[in-house]
């Protein structure tokens, strides 16, 4: 389990369960998650791929700076999933290129 359940200072109160899909597979997270935190908790380690070399990229900066977690969310490319709140019914897909506008 990748969620921090106990912390010496902070407490985490889980919101209600949120269901979304990742590459067609149904996953669950909690209200208050970012898309990336829900994916991480579900064991997803590969957040993107370098658009030239194709090498996998992991969860890196988690604050919207690095661009390692660009995904297609509800059909929109280049979404930084580490800073976008998870919503019920979101369709999240791995992005393997620079992003398709069409």
């Amino acid at each position, binding site marked *: 389990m990748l969620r921090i359940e106990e912390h010496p200072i902070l407490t985490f109160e889980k919101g209600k369960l949120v269901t979304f899909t990742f590459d067609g597979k149904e996953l669950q997270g909690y209200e208050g998650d970012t898309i990336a935190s829900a994916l991480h908790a579900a064991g997803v380690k590969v957040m993107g791929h370098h658009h030239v070399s194709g090498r996998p990229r992991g969860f890196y900066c988690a604050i919207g700076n690095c661009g390692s977690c660009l995904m297609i969310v509800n059909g929109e490319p280049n979404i930084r999933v580490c800073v976008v709140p998870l919503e019920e019914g979101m369709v999240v897909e791995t992005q393997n290129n*620079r*992003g398709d*506008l*069409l």
Partner: protein
Amino acid sequence: MSNPKTANVVIIGGGISGVAIAWNLAKKGVKDIVILEKKTVCSGATGRCGAGIRMQWGAEQNCLLAKMSVEFFENANEILEYDRDVEFDQGGYLIVAGNEKENEQFKKNIALQNSLGIPSKHLTPQEAKEIVPHMDETQIVGATFCQKDGHLNPFNTTEAFAKAAERLGVKILKKTKVTGIDVKNDKIVGVETTGGYISTPLVINAAGGWAQEVGKMAGVDLPLYSERHQILVTEPVELIQDPMYMAFSLNIYIQQTPHGSFIMGRSNPEEPRDLRQTSSWQFLHEMINTCTTLLPPLRKLNLVRQWAGLYNMTEDAQPIYGKVDNVEGFWLACGYSGHGFMLAPATGILLTEMILGEPLSIDITNLDLGRFERGELCFETSVV
């Protein structure tokens, strides 16, 4: 290395025009050429521009100048023996007409362009959509297209000229600002710079946005003014747009670079005449509204940054080429009104021919400074 104390030619401005003129002069055997650049090569309008090149003009002379430049750019890597790539992407220019009047003018332009050997054609909105499938064709009434038009990487293109010029002995003095031009008995005798005095009989004003200021240093009040033009770049995405998309009636251009980012700019008819190069939120707001109306899928793009550069404007939106009659040795290559980058290969060739007293490859004698006094302006309306 100390700066030269004398030069045969001093070029003021290390943008594309300055380096192109220097290379052409050096190639013809002129020695001791110095370029004075107050910041770094490409730091002015050249490094800030959209770097598009089109042969689709409304005035014959511009068609010919642009055609000469396209033919040069097509072979620029080889001619300039450049070890990198100027990235000339000939995806064409699609110029859209927003109303019937403009559309009719475009048909006349096409007839002129075709008569000069420029392979442009007129398109219906549906035909235009086949070339740029993500456009909203209901926003336009017609378009023109020329596959040979395109865009370049302005930094690489300028570097290609600069390196080739330096190999021929041209000295480019960076971070060296001209502080005065020494004129004695109506003759140029030297320039004062922050790096010392340089004696020279010949000065070429290729200072772009600052050409008016440079003119004043020689006591000449040039009919020029500068104004800010803004531009933005987005994140890169997969390539979807080959041509430069341009609309004169909306004052915009939108291109996708080989890297995948979109670069777009918009002119503001209300822009004050000054030397500001600041950015504004109003530009972003208007640019984004316009581009997402014309090309709706672009709404998915994230913006990376915006910047601005100076257009050096003349009353007829045409450059000033040639000498200043009452100051011997003072030559002008300025006032490009937003198309100095694309004309630079022709600028280099023609200024060199003028200075050396050779026959001109294209007659540009009517683009002299005297046209403003004679009242013989050559208006070009196909501008953004």
